[in-house]
C-alpha cells in the first residue's frame, strides 16, 4: 500500500439523499401510519385527546419493548418464538421475589439478569454455539417454559402489591408516564447499540451472510448468543411492565406477543432473513399496530378487523420492500417487458 493518504475526498451524495437512501425501507409503514392517523383524527374527536394518545402508547409498552429486542434477533437472521413464555416465567419470578420480601430494585435487577441469562444461555447457546435451528430451539423453549410456568405458579396468578410496580405503571417522571420513559430509553439504547457499536455491525453481518462474517474473523457465535440475551432482557422488562399494569403476575402465556412483535419488525422494513432494517422501522411498525388497534376500538369496530388488516398490510408492506429494494421493481418491470420482446423476436433465421 502506498503510504500517502489519498487526496480523494470522501465521496458521497447530498445529506438529504443519504437519509432518503438509508430510510427507504421505512416509506411504506410511515405512509400507512400517517394515513390511518389522519383518518382516525378526522373521524373520531376523542382520538387526538391527550388521554387517548397516552393510552395508545402505554397499552403497547410491552409490545414496543419486545419488538425492539426482537429486531436484533431478526437482523441476525433468526426469530424468537419463546419470548411470550419467557415473559410469563420472569413475571412469576418477579412476583415471587417481591412477595418474598426482596426489595423492588434488587428484584428488578435479578429479573433482568435472569432474562439475559435465559435468552442468551438457553436459546442463544443452543442456536449460536451448538448450531441448532432457531425455530426448533425457540419452539422447544416456548414449550418447556410454558410447562415450568404452570408448575411453578400452580396456574394461579400471584397478586403483587409493591411500590415499584405501581410506579412503573402509573408513576410520572417530569410529567411523563414511567412506561413511556422505559419505551423511550429502550429505544435510544437500542438505536445506539445498533448503529454506534461494533456489535451492531456484527449483527447486520451475521444476518447478511453468516459464513462470510465468520470467515472475516467475526465471532458469530457470540453475536447470536447476545441477540438472544437481548430478547431475554426485553422479555424481563415487558414482564415487569405487565405486572405493573395488572397488579398481578399472571401465568397466562400470551403467545401473541412474539407474533405481534415479529409483525411489527417486518412492517418496519427489517428483512425476514436478516441483514437489513433496524429499530427505527420497528418503532414505526409498533406505532402503526397501536394506532390501528386504538382507532378501531374507539370507532367500535371489532378488534378482529385489526387482525385482518394487519395480515393484509404485512404482506403488502413486505412485498413492496422486496420490489423496491435495489431497483427490484424496475427490474421486474423490465423483465416483463423483455419477455414480450423475446416472444416477438423468437423466429430468427439460422446462420
Amino acid at each position, binding site marked *: *500500500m*502506498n503510504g500517502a*493518504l*489519498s487526496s*480523494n475526498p*470522501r*465521496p*458521497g*451524495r447530498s445529506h438529504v439523499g*443519504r437519509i432518503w*437512501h*438509508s430510510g427507504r425501507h421505512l416509506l411504506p409503514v410511515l405512509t400507512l401510519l400517517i394515513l390511518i392517523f389522519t383518518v382516525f383524527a378526522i373521524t373520531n374527536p376523542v382520538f387526538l385527546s391527550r388521554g387517548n394518545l397516552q393510552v395508545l402508547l402505554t397499552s403497547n409498552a410491552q409490545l414496543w419493548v419486545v419488538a425492539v429486542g426482537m429486531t436484533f434477533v431478526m437482523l441476525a437472521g433468526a426469530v424468537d418464538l419463546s419470548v411470550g413464555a419467557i415473559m410469563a416465567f420472569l413475571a412469576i419470578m418477579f412476583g415471587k421475589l417481591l412477595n418474598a420480601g426482596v426489595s423492588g430494585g434488587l428484584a428488578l435487577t435479578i429479573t433482568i439478569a435472569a432474562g439475559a441469562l435465559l435468552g442468551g444461555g438457553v436459546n442463544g447457546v443452543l442456536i449460536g454455539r451448538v448450531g441448532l435451528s432457531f425455530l426448533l430451539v425457540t419452539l422447544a423453549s416456548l414449550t418447556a417454559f410454558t410447562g415450568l410456568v404452570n408448575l411453578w405458579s400452580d396456574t394461579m396468578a400471584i397478586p403483587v402489591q409493591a411500590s415499584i410496580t405501581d410506579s412503573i405503571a402509573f408513576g410520572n417522571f417530569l410529567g411523563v408516564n414511567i412506561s413511556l420513559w422505559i419505551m423511550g430509553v429502550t429505544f435510544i439504547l437500542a438505536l445506539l447499540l445498533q448503529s*454506534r*457499536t*461494533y*456489535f451492531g*455491525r*456484527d449483527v*447486520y*453481518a451475521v*444476518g*447478511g*451472510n453468516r*459464513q*462470510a*462474517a*465468520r*470467515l*472475516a*474473523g*467475526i*465471532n458469530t457465535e*457470540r453475536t447470536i448468543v*447476545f441477540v438472544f440475551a437481548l430478547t431475554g432482557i426485553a422479555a424481563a422488562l415487558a414482564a415487569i411492565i405487565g405486572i405493573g399494569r395488572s397488579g398481578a403476575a399472571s401465568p397466562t402465556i400470551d403467545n401473541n406477543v412474539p407474533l405481534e412483535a415479529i409483525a411489527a419488525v417486518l412492517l418496519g422494513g427489517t*428483512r425476514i432473513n436478516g*441483514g*437489513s432494517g433496524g429499530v427505527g422501522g420497528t418503532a414505526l411498525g409498533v406505532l402503526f399496530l397501536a394506532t390501528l388497534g386504538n382507532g378501531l376500538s374507539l370507532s367500535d369496530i371489532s378488534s378482529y378487523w385489526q387482525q385482518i388488516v394487519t395480515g393484509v398490510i404485512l404482506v403488502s408492506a413486505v412485498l413492496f420492500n422486496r420490489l423496491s429494494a*435495489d431497483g427490484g421493481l424496475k427490474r421486474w418491470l423490465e423483465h416483463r417487458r423483455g419477455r414480450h420482446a423475446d416472444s416477438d423476436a*423468437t*423466429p*430468427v433465421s*439460422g*446462420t
Partner: protein
Amino acid sequence: MRPPGRTPLLALHGLSKRYGGVHALRGANLTIARPGLVHGLLGENGSGKSTMLGVLSGQHQPDEGRVELEGRALSFHSPSDALRHGIAMVAQEAAIAPELTVTENILMGRGLARSRFLIDWSSSREKACRVLELLDLDYDPDWLVRDLRPDQRQMVEIARAISTNARVVILDEPTSSLDAGEVNALFAVIESLKAQDVTVLFVSHRLNEIFAVCDSLTILRDGKTIVEGPVDTFDADSIVRAMVGGDTDRRVTRGPQPATDCAPALELRHLHSTGRLTDISLSVRPGEIVGLCGLVGSGRSELLECIFGVRDVTAGGISVCGSARHGSGPHGAIRSGIALVPPDRKEQGLVLSGSVRTNLMSVATAERNRLRRPIKKEEDPIIAELCTSMRVRLHDYEAPVGNLSGGNQQKVVLAKWLARRPKVLLLDEPTRGVDVRAKVEIHRLVRSIAAEGVAVLVSSSEAPELLDLCDRIIVMSQGRSVAVVEAADASEETLMRLASAPDLEAPSSNKEEWSQST
C-alpha cells in the same frame, strides 16, 4: 460441420448469454450428428461450458440463439421442459436423496407405478430393475442410496435419466469424484447407453477419458465454439491448443525473484485431513507466490481451508513465520496473520447487503471491543487509501457492496484483508467470474502485495492464471501433491497433463513418468 443431407440430432446455434457485464456465451454452437454418439464438450473453466449445459437442460434461457432437436426449434423454460423433450442432465454434484432406496431415486418424480391411490411398490421395483438391466447394473433396488459409493450413486442418477426415456443424457464432469476403477464402470454404462441409441454429452477435463469414450468433440473458449469434429481428427496437443488459444505467451514479466535464503512465512509439515488430504508438505517464503494446480476434487480448496482453520487437520503442523498457527477456527488463523480470499465471494467473501464500509473494515476491527463505537472519521482515510491502491472507484461508502460490479467486489474482498496487513495470503479462485480487465488488475495487485513481503498461496483451476502469477506451482491430485514445477519452466500443456494424468499407485512419480503416460 453438419453432414450434408441429414438433420443433426441436436444442434445449438449462436447461443449468447450475459450475466451482468460478463459474457458467458457469445455465439457458441454445438452439433451432434446422430443418436447413439458420445459427444465430448471441452473448455477451460470460464469458457462457457456450464452455461451451455444450463441452456440445454432448461436451467438458463439464452439471450440469443436456439436449440434444435431433430430440426425442430425448442425453447425450454425449466428443467422439466427439457426432460419432456428427452434431455436429461446428471449434475456434477449428485442430486440424489440419500435416505431413499435405489428404486425411489430412479423413479423419483413421476416414475413410481401406482395402483389407483397408492404406490404399487412391486411393479415400481420391477420398473427400476428393468432400467438397471439396460445399464448392466446388478444393484438391489431396495438398497439405500446412502450406502452406495459415489460412482454407484452416479449410476443411479444415470438410471434415473434414462428411466424418463431421455434421448440425450448430459454428464457434467462425471469422473471428477471417481477413482480409476469407478471410471471404467462408468465407461461400461456409457457403452450400454450407446447401445440403446441414447446420445451422451460428456464433459471432462481429463484428455485420456475424452479419447477413451468420445466419438466427436466440441471445444469452447471464451464463450465461443473454437472447433467441432470427430474425435479422430484431434490429438492431445491440438485439443489443448484449441482450449488454451494460440496466445500461449500471455506471461507478464515478474519483478525480481524473492530471496531464496529467508525463513518461510508459511510452512506445512505432513498435513493430513481425513478423506481429503494426504501428507502435504510445503513452504512459502515471504514475497513468493506459489500456485496450487489440480482438477476439481484434487484437494486444492481443502488445503487452503485447512490452513485457514475451517477444515479439521487430522495430523501435521502449520506454522506462520516460524511459530505454530494459533488455536482453531478462522479466528486463530487471522490472529496468526493468515488471510483467505474464498472462492465464492457472494457466499463466503462478502456480506452483500452490508455497506462497503462495514465489509472493508470487518477484518481489521474483528478484535475490537464490541461495545466500542466505530469512528467513521478514523475509517475514512483507511478506506480511501485501500480504494486508491485497489483502484476501486466508489461513489458512496455506505452503499451495499452488492451493488458493485463483480470485479470491484472481488477487489473489496482482497482489500478487507489488506486492511489488516496479513503475512500469508491464501487466494482460492481469485478471479472467478470477473471480466478480463479486472482479472489483469487483480493479478497486478496480488503481485504488488507479494512484493511487500507477503507470502501468497493461490489455488486456481485456470492454468494460465497460475503461470502468469506464480513463481512455483504445486500440482495436486486426489489430495496429494504430485509435482512441483517452476512456473518459468512450465506450460499449460505440462500442467494439464500432470493434473489430468491417470492416477498411478506411487504418489512420488516424477514429472517424466507423468508426461509419458498421457
